[in-house]
């Protein structure tokens, strides 16, 4: 009987549950989709050269940790649902139902909704997981194929996890409902809170801010005065002076707080503090620019401290912004009669201010969370493409064997080897080699051995062999000439400086002059440079008498190495070349590198995207519920407007305006901050972006992400709008009293 009652309640109030179902479904489907990758049954067609086991545990941990956040959200949504239904609870208790029974009924009701979302979520999750598979296949550079992803272990984990979630939250809600007094339930939707516009929390933030700025000022005096010598550019010196002065201006504002507040308004004071904070943020943000373009030397710890301080400034500015926004509206309303007394503006201001006044803290937190998630979201393609692009440049050979003389304790003791011992392994495993190049790099002078980072050289014939491997054109040199091969991300200016400085070089085997050939930047792997940007190309004859620095063997195989073979090859190699604690010799196979790096990239990528979407969902849900939780009050207020003769289309416009501000302001602020952040990143890392990613590709990815963000935003905005309008038009017909 009771179950039927609960079930009927569900059927009747399914619209009220819209937000609840939407949020849960979104979370469950994401959870399922991301988790399905770790399933034992998941066998995407990524080929024998890949091994997905590396993914498993890392992913599982990441997903479950992030999902813990959801318990908080489910709890929040539940509280809203309880508030929404209190009147009904009141009627039930007046009829004589036990409060524990009411709680039980409500629990069943939410459970039915939960189960419904669970089923819907898993179905959607199966669909979403296709996108994740697509993402995975893209990371492993395979074409997309459809695979059906309903796995029993993932379903079990999803049901188990969310079941536990419901149970925990359910216990809490039973406890909550049993504690509410009947009289409070009856009047729940009309409770009047005296609305306050004092933002006590911001006073605390200000205090912390003053202390931090003071400490930062002292720290800057200690660290930055070092740059006040003629060694550094005037721009840097001016910057140093400014960045020392600003913190103390802030501290001064803190000390003179009472005085300023007495003579001018609260808003003006906050504006002053905000402007100084903003100036500080811009100033500190210049630091990476100096570092990048003027090669400003700075200790890593200090640099990170300054970057962390930018984040504090941001938090502080957003806090100040919302308080100023809220109080500023109030000032605007009171100052400008023209604005205040235009149409229904009075009502509109009342709506926004009454809500914002007591919610500036949560708005600030939501805005910061949104900023974080948008930044994470935008950062993802950047990191992924970078790592992937880097992988493509770093591992260009199927099998790459290197030595690194700088890691050895005594270079003279190193055995000279041409790595021919591997041939038997290739024979045994029937691995056919398409191309095979064994070569060495040389010191220009034997005495360079002792330096840690000498420029080394490669012989012309070996160089041309490598060029041939990739189908590049060979180069030729005269007997007394040399040329250069550069790491591809080297800036042009460095090359030019080198050219003027080293137009002729001295070797143990005579002097050489720089040839007229353009410096080369072809991709030949990143190891042959021995910790430098450049390797010199010398005629074969010259090399003959030079001291060997490193020995290499680079191999291209006919068909890709399988993952198992690659692992065995590594073991086999290290059996012959024991490491003895010195990492002199290394073998890198494209198979293992690509697999492991791709797996890591994928974990990072899914982790970032998953957290970003979950944070979006959380923020939007909270924003939406903040508007819907007062539906009783709103219904009354809008009914008053109707009674006074305000047209329906005006009321619709008012609702739209109100929701627009409520969703729009935090989203716009968050977008603004995160796009500034991303712009900063793009400018700062423009070279790497051009080399590893390609600006157009990155822009495409950023566009995709913005589309996802807006799709989510529109979903939540629309459903909030529908529910809002539904709640304010309830009881409109035939009754003038509410």
């Amino acid at each position, binding site marked *: 009987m009771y179950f039927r009652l609960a079930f009927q309640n569900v059927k009747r109030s399914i619209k009220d549950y819209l937000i609840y179902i939407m949020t849960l479904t979104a979370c469950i489907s994401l959870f399922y989709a991301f988790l399905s990758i770790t399933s034992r049954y998941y066998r995407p067609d990524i080929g024998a050269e890949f091994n997905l086991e590396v993914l498993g545990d890392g992913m599982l941990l990441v997903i479950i940790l992030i999902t813990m956040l959801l318990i908080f959200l489910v709890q929040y949504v539940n509280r809203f649902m309880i508030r929404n239904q209190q009147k009904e609870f009141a009627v039930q208790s007046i009829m004589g139902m036990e409060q524990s029974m009411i709680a039980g009924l409500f629990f069943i009701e939410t459970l039915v909704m939960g189960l419904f979302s669970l089923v819907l979520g898993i179905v959607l999750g199966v669909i979403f997981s296709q996108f994740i598979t697509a993402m995975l296949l893209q990371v492993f550079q395979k074409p997309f194929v459809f695979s059906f992803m309903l796995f029993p272990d993932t379903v079990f984990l999803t049901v188990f996890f969310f079941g536990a979630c419901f149970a925990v939250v359910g216990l809490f809600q039973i406890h909550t409902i049993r504690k509410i007094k009947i009289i409070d339930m009856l009047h729940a939707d009309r409770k009047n809170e*005296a609305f306050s516009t004092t933002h006590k929390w911001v006073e605390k933030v200000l205090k912390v801010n003053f202390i931090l700025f003071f400490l930062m000022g002292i720290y800057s005096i200690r660290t930055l005065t070092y740059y006040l010598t003629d060694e550094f550019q005037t721009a840097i010196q001016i910057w140093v002076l400014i960045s020392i002065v600003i913190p103390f201006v802030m501290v001064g504002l803190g000390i003179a707080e009472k005085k300023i507040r007495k003579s001018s308004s609260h808003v003006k004071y906050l504006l002053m503090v905000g402007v100084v904070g903003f100036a500080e943020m811009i100033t500190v943000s210049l630091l990476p620019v100096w570092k990048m373009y003027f090669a400003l030397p700075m200790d890593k710890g200090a640099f990170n401290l300054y970057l962390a301080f930018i984040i504090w400034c941001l938090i502080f500015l957003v806090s100040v912004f919302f308080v100023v926004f809220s109080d500023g509206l109030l000032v605007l309303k009171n100052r400008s009669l023209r604005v205040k007394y*235009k149409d*229904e503006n*009075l*009502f509109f201001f009342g709506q926004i201010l009454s809500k914002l006044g007591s919610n500036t803290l949560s708005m600030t937190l939501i805005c910061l969370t949104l900023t974080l998630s948008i930044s994470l979201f935008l950062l993802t393609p950047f990191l992924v493409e970078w790592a992937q692009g880097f992988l493509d440049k770093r591992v260009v050979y199927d099998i790459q064997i290197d030595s690194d003389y700088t890691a050895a304790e005594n270079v003279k003791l190193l055995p000279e080897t041409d790595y021919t011992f591997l041939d038997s392994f290739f024979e045994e495993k029937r691995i056919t080699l398409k191309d095979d190049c064994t070569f060495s790099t040389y010191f220009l002078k034997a005495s360079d051995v002792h330096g840690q980072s000498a420029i080394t050289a490669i012989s012309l014939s070996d160089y041309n062999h490598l060029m041939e491997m990739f189908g590049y054109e060979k180069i030729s040199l005269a007997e007394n000439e040399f040329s250069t091969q550069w790491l591809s991300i080297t800036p042009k200016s460095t090359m030019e400086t080198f050219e003027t400085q080293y137009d002729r070089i001295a070797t143990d085997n005579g002097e050489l002059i720089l040839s007229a050939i353009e410096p080369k930047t072809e991709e030949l792997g990143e190891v042959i440079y021995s910790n430098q940007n450049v390797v010199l190309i010398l005629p074969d004859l010259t090399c003959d008498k030079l001291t060997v620095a490193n020995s290499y063997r680079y191999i291209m195989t006919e068909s890709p190495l399988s993952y198992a073979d690659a692992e065995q090859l590594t073991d086999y190699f290290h059996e012959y070349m024991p490491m003895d604690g010195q990492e002199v010799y290394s073998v890198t196979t494209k198979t293992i590198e690509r697999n492991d790096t791709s797996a890591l990239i994928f974990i990072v990528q899914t982790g970032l995207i998953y957290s970003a979407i979950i944070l979006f969902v959380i923020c939007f849900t909270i924003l939406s519920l903040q508007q819907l939780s007062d539906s009783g009050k709103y219904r009354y207020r809008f*009914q008053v407007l*109707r*009674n006074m003769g305000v047209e329906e289309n005006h009321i619709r416009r008012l609702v739209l305006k109100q929701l627009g501000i409520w969703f729009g302001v935090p989203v716009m602020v968050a977008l603004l901050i995160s796009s500034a952040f991303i712009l900063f990143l793009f400018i700062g890392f423009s070279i790497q972006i051009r080399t590893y990613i390609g600006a157009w590709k990155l822009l495409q990815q950023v566009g995709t992400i913005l589309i996802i963000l807006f799709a989510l935003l529109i979903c939540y905005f629309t459903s909030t709008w529908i529910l809002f309008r539904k709640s304010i038009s309830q009881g409109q017909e035939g009754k003038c009293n509410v």
Partner: protein
Amino acid sequence: MKEILKLDHIQKFYGNEGNVTKAIQDIDFSVQEGEFLGIMGASGSGKTTMLNCISTIDTVSAGHIYLDGTDVTEIKEKAIAKFRRENLGFIFQDFNLLDTLTIRENIALALTINHIPVGEIEPRVEEIAKSLNIADILDKYPYQVSGGQKQRCACARAIINHPKLILADEPTGALDSHSSQMLLSTMQSMNENLGATILMVTHDAFSASYANRILFLRDGVIFTEILKGRDTRKVFFDKILNVLTMMGGGISDVL
């Protein structure tokens, strides 16, 4: 005297075939400009339904309602809100004030909705507040003032646009006796000094005694009508009680 409101044999039915409730059987009366009319009747007598019909919130099933010559039953859906805000003022039992606005803003809202020039708003609010004795609480919020003050604020809001008719639905319903008395005096002075035409629905005899004329409704028809004329309020009050006794089932039921 001008006839401001005329109800021409209105009827109102609820329900569908086979199960029809007649909320208003047949009501026909008119209100002159400057009148203070009371409508009395027990619960279910149709007084609130009638008020809703006059205030254009509900529609009649038959008959016509004329307000200053305009047939409100013929006004198009789109024009109703405009008609309401330009011609009618409302006073409700639960005040209908917005808790987000100060008393001043609550009164001003009625003006801004009617697009009154910005410069006129503040002086008009001050003026009406002075005459209704709420000038000193103008900058307080509704939750900071008493019920009586709230209701006087509602009166100020109702009258500030000089509507042709003020409709009051149980205005003293949520007030204690002292506040009720103050409010009724206020309404009386609105009627006498500001020339407001008021139609007040109540089931409280004391409140009704402030009106000039009272219509008694029973089961959707006008049962009777009494006029105050030159009587004192005490005498008028006794008359009302007599009518109520007579209506309350009638003496024949007791004997």
